[in-house]
């Protein structure tokens, strides 16, 4: 963890901070992204109310940044906290816009006001997640207990278990809702491929870039599950299986449904499940 002020490192540190912030945003914001009521609020909100929402969030994110933030360093000074607040909101807005676009809730044909409303009302909860990122993702609090007790079970089994638990925690709330069939209906095969790519990228980002204190330790772990790329792919498959099971459990999918429905529902629920699974692996 030695920090160098050299030119090359400053960019990679900065990138790590941003990815950590974005990961926190995804963990906190993704359940709201799968809530149609929030899209509707975005659809009819007037510009005056949007401005108030941004201002209110700015204050809340500012206060959170003073205590948690998304950087390794704590922001003691008001000015630094204010700068980080602007960045947290920008990260939240960009991530939310990206997922809304991925889920086809925003398309180039969507009118400007609706696009803005959706991005703002989905992006501001993301910004709260960004501001809490170092709290959820540092692993500092668990580190002392973790390094004392070496894992007694096979690390591969432990990772599958952690992925399942995390995927369940995030995706169980989303699985029985109507948003999954609704979103799946609007997503064509090229966008399904994009969702797969985004799920893998976000999962990789959360586990191997954002979990900064934990990262060095994870890469040392042995086992087939432990290479960053293979772990990400395996965890994605585990999360997809968990999503399919959850949809089946809530009778959103049955064996009479064609396979294309199984595929589209599973991929749509797979995004939050993967994010949860990645967070699960960080905390175990």
């Amino acid at each position, binding site marked *: 963890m030695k920090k160098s002020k050299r030119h090359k490192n400053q960019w990679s540190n900065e990138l790590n901070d941003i990815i950590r912030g974005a990961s926190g945003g995804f963990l906190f914001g993704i359940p709201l992204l799968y809530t149609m009521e929030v899209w509707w609020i975005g659809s009819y909100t*007037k510009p005056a109310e949007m401005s108030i929402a941004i201002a209110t969030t700015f204050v809340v994110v500012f206060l959170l940044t003073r205590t948690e933030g998304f950087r390794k360093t704590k922001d003691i000074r008001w000015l630094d906290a204010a700068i980080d607040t602007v960045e947290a*909101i920008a990260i939240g*807005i960009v991530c939310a816009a990206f997922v809304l676009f991925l889920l086809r809730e925003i398309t180039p044909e969507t009118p400007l*006001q609706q696009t803005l409303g959706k991005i703002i009302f989905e992006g501001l909860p993301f910004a709260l997640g960004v501001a809490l990122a170092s709290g959820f993702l540092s692993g500092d609090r668990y580190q002392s207990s973790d390094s004392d007790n070496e894992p007694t079970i096979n690390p591969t089994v432990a990772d599958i278990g952690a992925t399942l638990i995390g995927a369940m925690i995030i995706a169980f709330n989303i699985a029985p809702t109507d948003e999954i069939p609704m979103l799946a209906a609007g997503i064509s095969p090229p966008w399904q491929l994009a969702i797969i790519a985004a799920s893998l990228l976000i999962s990789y980002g959360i586990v191997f870039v954002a979990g900064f204190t934990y990262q060095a330790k994870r890469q040392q772990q042995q086992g087939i599950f432990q290479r960053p790329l293979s772990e990400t792919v395996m965890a994605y498959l585990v999360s997809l299986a968990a999503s399919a099971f959850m949809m089946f459990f809530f009778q959103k999918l049955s064996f009479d449904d064609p396979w294309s429905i199984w595929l589209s529902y599973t991929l749509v629920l797979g995004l939050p499940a993967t994010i949860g699974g990645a967070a699960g692996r960080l905390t175990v």
Partner: protein
Amino acid sequence: MSESNKEQQPKKTFAEWATFAIACSILSLLIGLVLYNWLAKKQEPPIISVTRNTPIRENKGQFYVPFTVTNTGGETAESVQIIAELRVNGEVLESGDQQIDFLSSGETQEGAFIFSRNPSQGQLIVRSSSYQLP
């Protein structure tokens, strides 16, 4: 921790300033768009228009009548009701209705009504009948 604070806090690196600059431009773009939308927005109630541009198609004895509904007014309309009636000799033989959840200013939605009689044999009326303000 305290050491890194001393090193990092007083002097921000170039990378941090670059991030801040990008973040500022994203945020100001967003606020700018909200303000633009606020000022440019027409202060008028929803104006709902229903049009039928696509030809009617027939499949297995059913007639599909596609329609397009657009809100050209300023505000968002909620629960926009679209009704279609097929009249032959002044008598309503078939009717259908359709509800659109949200139709914001400038938004267009498409749908279709399905009739079992050929609409070209009578008078087909497709119109919006009501909406709510959110």
